[in-house]
């Protein structure tokens, strides 16, 4: 979920940025259409697998590490589907979360509990809840779908002395913990280098730094490999580092909740 979600931000923000090239301030409708087109052109990675290491850094510097394996598949007619399987810590080894993201409706989620071999459908309404005790909320790791946001306020700015394009996006779905997200895009690749998350009081709640991009097709298909989310209220940080992405032959049937627990 994570890379695709954030990659989707890349797509979304890139599209918004493309709009910026022609219009200093794009209307939200234009940005939406551009994002859909950009996403279409960026698709094609289909089914993939990668492993990631998540390091949670407490405000006092103490760290704890999680390792996950992630399968993802892109569907033409619906949102993406992902399976996150915990590998470490060992007490949650094999625990899996299956998510069916939808373009307009609420996501569907299932949990696989290896100790009892139980598949349990769970509520996906707790979007602002913390994922695995990290600074990433469920909505941060959920599949990004263009239709779940309004996108506007394109303008130019600077980040670490480099020019960036700024895009403001407002969640349309219920139970979001954010009033808006502001993405800072590289103007040459249209990839986000930073995203600021604002709470309902208009304060910056969290900041996500993104780096280590690689391109996977001739058309682009950029994927970031490093993330760092900083919570400005608590002082906690969560770093995520992805290993190589592998294209797989895993088809959409493997993402059927009937089969959750079989894919390892």
């Amino acid at each position, binding site marked *: 979920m994570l890379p695709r979600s954030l990659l989707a931000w890349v797509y979304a923000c890139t599209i918004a940025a493309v709009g910026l090239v022609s219009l200093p301030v794009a209307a939200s409708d234009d940005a939406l259409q551009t994002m859909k087109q950009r996403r279409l052109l960026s698709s094609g990675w289909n089914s993939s697998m990668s492993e990631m290491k998540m390091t949670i850094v407490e405000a006092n510097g103490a760290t704890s590490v999680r390792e996950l394996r992630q399968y993802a598949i892109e569907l033409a007619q619906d949102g993406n589907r992902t399976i996150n399987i915990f590998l470490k810590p060992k007490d949650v080894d094999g625990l899996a979360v299956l998510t069916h993201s939808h373009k307009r409706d609420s996501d569907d989620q299932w949990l696989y509990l290896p100790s009892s071999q139980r598949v*349990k459908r769970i509520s996906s309404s707790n979007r602002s809840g913390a994922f695995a005790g990290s600074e990433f909320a469920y909505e941060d790791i959920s599949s990004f779908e263009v239709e779940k946001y309004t996108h506007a306020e394109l303008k130019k700015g600077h980040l670490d002395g480099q020019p960036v394009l700024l895009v403001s996006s407002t969640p349309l779905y219920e139970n979001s913990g954010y009033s808006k997200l502001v993405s800072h895009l590289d103007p040459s690749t249209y990839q986000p280098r930073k995203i600021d998350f604002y709470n309902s009081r208009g304060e910056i709640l969290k900041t996500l730094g993104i780096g280590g991009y690689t391109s996977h097709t001739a058309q682009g298909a950029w994927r970031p490999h490093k993330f760092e989310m900083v919570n400005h209220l608590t002082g906690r940080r969560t770093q995520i580092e992805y290993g190589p992405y592998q294209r797989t032959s895993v088809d959409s049937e493997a993402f059927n*909740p009937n*089969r959750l627990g079989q894919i390892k």
Partner: protein
Amino acid sequence: MTPRWATVIAASVLALCPCAAQVRKAGGSLAFSELYYLKDKPGYAGSTGVLSGQLEAEFALQDLGRLSLKGVAHYDLREGKGRYADLPVAKYAYAQERWRLDLGFDTIFWGVVESQRLVNVVNQVDPLRSLRGDVTLGQPMLAATWFGERYKLETLVLPWFRERRFGGSTYRSGLLLSVDERDPLYQDSRGRRHVDHAVRLSGRVDVLEAGLSLFQGTLREPRLVAQASSKDLRPLYVQGQQIGLDAQYTRGATLFKLEAKQVRPRNEPSFRAAVYGFEQALGRIGRAPFDLSVFIEHNWDSRGEAAPNFLQNDLFMGLRLDFANTLATVLTLGLFQDLDHGSRLGRVLLETRLTDELSLAGELYLVSAKKPQDRLFGARDLEQVSVKLKWNF
């Protein structure tokens, strides 16, 4: 006691493991728990310690399938009856695009509710490892599963019966029932060799998920019968059929749940039982450091006081507090309220990680029952608190 062929299967799985092409998974845990009883009972120890362990491994045999193994061992430091081992999983699995075959010992989970396992009929429960009935023994089986886009059809052949363990009246960590489990009675002359069958069709339509299951064979729940020659009761396993239904309707943060079954024992009156209720995810309330979930379920059994468990007309209320920390701290509070007698069974469970490898759990059971005719009355002697330290590797 297990049949020769089952031993052969388990031994084959074990023997083939080292030859397997690829180890997909290997690990386990070792735990020590200390249990204290809250009430003195003359002639019984006031506390006990248990060492328990689990080993788990999975091997991929290239295109020839997969071997899975999970073994558990339980060693009571003070009582011999608390020393045993089991194989919840020791099986070979072969899967194709639309179907899968499993052969060996396996553990099946059917159902949706939290307060009991009503329709989960395949595996025998193991009350010595969990008073809640949520821990089961491995069941030898040949299972074939067909996967549709929105449904799944499971067919199981169960050639060997696993008897329930009681521990006897002298083993306090058991159920304190005077049951002689060494020589159970069977209604069918084939005894534990009777071949049972089960089928389950499950699927989902939008936010509704449901399963319909049929079981024919030796019913897992024994009837306890008196003996003329002994004061001990003997388990009687009768033949019968069970039709089970489980369904969950997910609406936003609310999960509506239902489990119902009709059981037709041979030569005995049939009975029905049901559990229905909901689970509500409330998320984080205010600045509380946890996500809160609420569970409410009503348990009903048409046998009333004759039901072998205490859930004939009981309300279950539960709270689950998931603390958003790196220690995965979870506090669970559960209360069964008997609506006929007013008795109560309460449980508090606190689980937390100490490090990435070590975890700690504390559990408390409390019973309040005043009427001797109440099923919970005898359980007052089982009031207990336990602490468990677990090393995961």
